[in-house]
C-alpha cells in the first residue's frame, strides 16, 4: 500500500458539516485520552508513596512524590525503607528479569524470523513438486490454538530437563512460526523472477540468491515482522510462567510482575512498586511505538487486507 495515497475520505468532495466535524474531532480527542490516560496513571502512581496514596486519590500529580517505588522494584531500597513506604519488603530481581526478557525476546525474534524467511523462500521462489501441499500444513498449523499445545509442550520441555531454563522458554518458538512463514511468503512471491534467473545463469546458487537478492529486497517486511515478534515475545506470560517461574534465572519480566503482586500479604498491594515495575516493562514497547509506530501501524493494516 502506497503510503501517501491513503484512501481516506477527508478531501474537499466529502466536506463534512461543521457539527459533524466538531463531533468527530471531539471523539478522536476522547479516544486518545482513553488510550493514554491509564499509561499516565501508571507513571503517576509509580512516583507516589504507597502508604499515602489515600490522601489525594484523584489528584493528577503523584501523592507524596518519591522514587521509592522504583528503588524497591530495582532492589535499591533496604527492607526497612520499603516497609516504611508501604512496600511489602518482598524482593524480586527486576534487573535479572529485564535481562532475561531481553535475551528471550531477542533470541526468539532473530532465530524465528531467519528460519521462517528461509522456509518462506522454499515456498515461494523455489519450485518443487508437493510445495503447496507442504505449505498447506503450515497454514493449518496457523489455526491450532496455543492452549491446546501448552500441556504436551510443557511435558516435552520437562522431559528434556529444560524446565526453569531460558532455552526451555525459547525452544518451541525458535525454529519457526507459521504466521511468519505465511507473512514473508506473501512478499517473496512478488520477487521479480527474471533477476533470479539471471543470477542462476551467472552461476549463483540459491543460498546466494536468498541472502544477496531476495532477503535484502524484502528487508523492510522482515524488520517489521521482527518488531511484531519481539513485542509478542516480550509480552508473553502463560508459557514463560509455567516453564520458567521456578527460578530467578529464568523468570521473565511479565512473570516477575505477577510474582511481585502475589507476594503482597493480604490487604492492599504495593501499588507504587507494582506500577513502577509495570512501567519499566512497558517502556520498551512505548519506545518501539515512538520510533517504529508508522511501520507497526502499516503492518497491522497490511495483515488485515491480505
Amino acid at each position, binding site marked *: 500500500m502506497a503510503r501517501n495515497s491513503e484512501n481516506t475520505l*477527508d478531501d474537499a468532495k466529502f466536506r463534512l458539516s461543521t457539527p459533524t466535524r466538531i463531533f468527530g474531532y471531539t471523539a478522536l480527542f476522547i*479516544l486518545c485520552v482513553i488510550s493514554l490516560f491509564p499509561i499516565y496513571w501508571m507513571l503517576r502512581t509509580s512516583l507516589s508513596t504507597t502508604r499515602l496514596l489515600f490522601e489525594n486519590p484523584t489528584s493528577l500529580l503523584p501523592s507524596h512524590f518519591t522514587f521509592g517505588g522504583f528503588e524497591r522494584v530495582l532492589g535499591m531500597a533496604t527492607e526497612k525503607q520499603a516497609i516504611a513506604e508501604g512496600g511489602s519488603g518482598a524482593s524480586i530481581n527486576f534487573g535479572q528479569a529485564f535481562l532475561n526478557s531481553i535475551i528471550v525476546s531477542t533470541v526468539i525474534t532473530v532465530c524465528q524470523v531467519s528460519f521462517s524467511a528461509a522456509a518462506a*523462500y522454499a515456498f515461494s*521462489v523455489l519450485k518443487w*513438486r508437493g510445495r503447496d501441499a507442504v505449505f498447506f500444513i503450515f497454514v493449518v498449523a496457523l489455526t491450532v490454538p496455543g492452549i491446546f499445545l501448552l500441556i504436551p509442550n510443557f511435558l*516435552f520441555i520437562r522431559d528434556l530437563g529444560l524446565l526453569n531454563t531460558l532455552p526451555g522458554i525459547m525452544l518451541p518458538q525458535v525454529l519457526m512460526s507459521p504466521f511468519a512463514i505465511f507473512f514473508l511468503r506473501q512478499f517473496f512471491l512478488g520477487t521479480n523472477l527474471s533477476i533470479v534467473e539471471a543470477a542462476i545463469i551467472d552461476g549463483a546458487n540459491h543460498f546466494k540468491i536468498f541472502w544477496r537478492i531476495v532477503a535484502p529486497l524484502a528487508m523492510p517486511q522482515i524488520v517489521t515482522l521482527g518488531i511484531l515478534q519481539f513485542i509478542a515475545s516480550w509480552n508473553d*506470560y502463560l508459557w514463560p510462567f509455567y516453564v520458567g517461574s521456578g527460578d530467578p534465572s529464568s523468570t521473565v519480566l*511479565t512473570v516477575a510482575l505477577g510474582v511481585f503482586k502475589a507476594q503482597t500479604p493480604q490487604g492492599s498491594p504495593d501499588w507504587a512498586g507494582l506500577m513502577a515495575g509495570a512501567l519499566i516493562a512497558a517502556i520498551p514497547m512505548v519506545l518501539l511505538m515512538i520510533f517504529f509506530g508508522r511501520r507497526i501501524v502499516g503492518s497491522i493494516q497490511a495483515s488485515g487486507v491480505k
Partner: protein
Amino acid sequence: MSNLAVTKRKKPKGNFWVAVPFMLPALVGLGVFVIAPGIRGVILSFANYNVFTGQADFTGFANYIRMFQDVRFLNSFLVTMEYVLINIGIQTVVALFIAVLLHRFTRSHIIKGIVLLPYLISNVIVAMVWYWLMDYNLGLINSILDALSLHKFTFFSEQTAMPSIALINVWRHMGYTSLLIFAGMQAIPKDVYEAAAIDGASEWRIFRSVTLPLLRPVLAFVLVITVTGSFQIFDTIAVTTKGGPVMSTDTFSIWIAREAWGNNDFGYASAISVFLMVLLSVIAFAQTKIMSANQSDLDR
C-alpha cells in the same frame, strides 16, 4: 491468489533437494513443537497421566465422561461465553466506530499510533493497571465516584468480575481491531462514496448501506481472529481474580491450567484442551460459512 505470475513460468525441475535445507529448521519446528505435541495431547486425553513417574494408564473415554459430568464444565462454558460475548460484542462495535473516525476525520499516523499503543503493552501490565484503577478502596474510578458522593462500585464481585475483565481487554484490543477494520474500509472504492454523497445520503445512511455491507468479508476475518483469541483468555484473569470469586471467572484456560498444574491431572486437563480446540474449530468454521454466505458485495 496473486502468485499466478510466479507459478505460470513453470520450470518443474525437481528442485526439492534445493528446498530442503531452506525449510529444514521450520519442518523440524513444525514436527517437534506442533505435530508431535498435538498427537501427544490427544493421546494424553485418553489416559491417566502420572507426572512424577511419567507413566500413562489408558482409561478410554473416562476423562471425557468425567468432563461432561463435571459441574465445572458447564460453569466454564457459561463463564467463557459470557466473556467472549461481552468482549467481542463491545469491542467490535467500538472498533467499528473508531475505524469510521480514522477513515473520515484524520490521516494522522500519530493518532493511529496512540490508539494502537495499548495493544503493545502486555496483558499482564494492562490487567494490573486496570485492577488498580478499579480498586475498591483507593482506585481512581471509585475515588471519583466517592468525591461526587455517589456509591462506590465493586468491579470484581461475583457478578461484575467477568464483565470488568472483558472491558479491560476491550481497552487493550480496540485499537488493533479498529486498524484491521480501517484497512478494510480503505479497500472500498471512493466512487461508491461519491455516488452516495451525490445522492445526498446522510452519514449514518452511508455507513449502514455502503460501508457495513462492503466490509463484510473483512469483518468475518476480524471476528475469526478475535473470537479465537478471546476464547483462550488467560493472562488477565491469572493476575487478577484467578478464577474467582466463586468460580465466576473460571474460564476454560484457567480451569485447564488448574487441573494440570494445580491438581497434577494432566490427562484430564488434556481432555478439556481437546474439547476447547474442537469447539474453536467448529466456531471458526461456522463463522466463515455464515459471514461469507452471500459474498457478492464487492467482487474484485
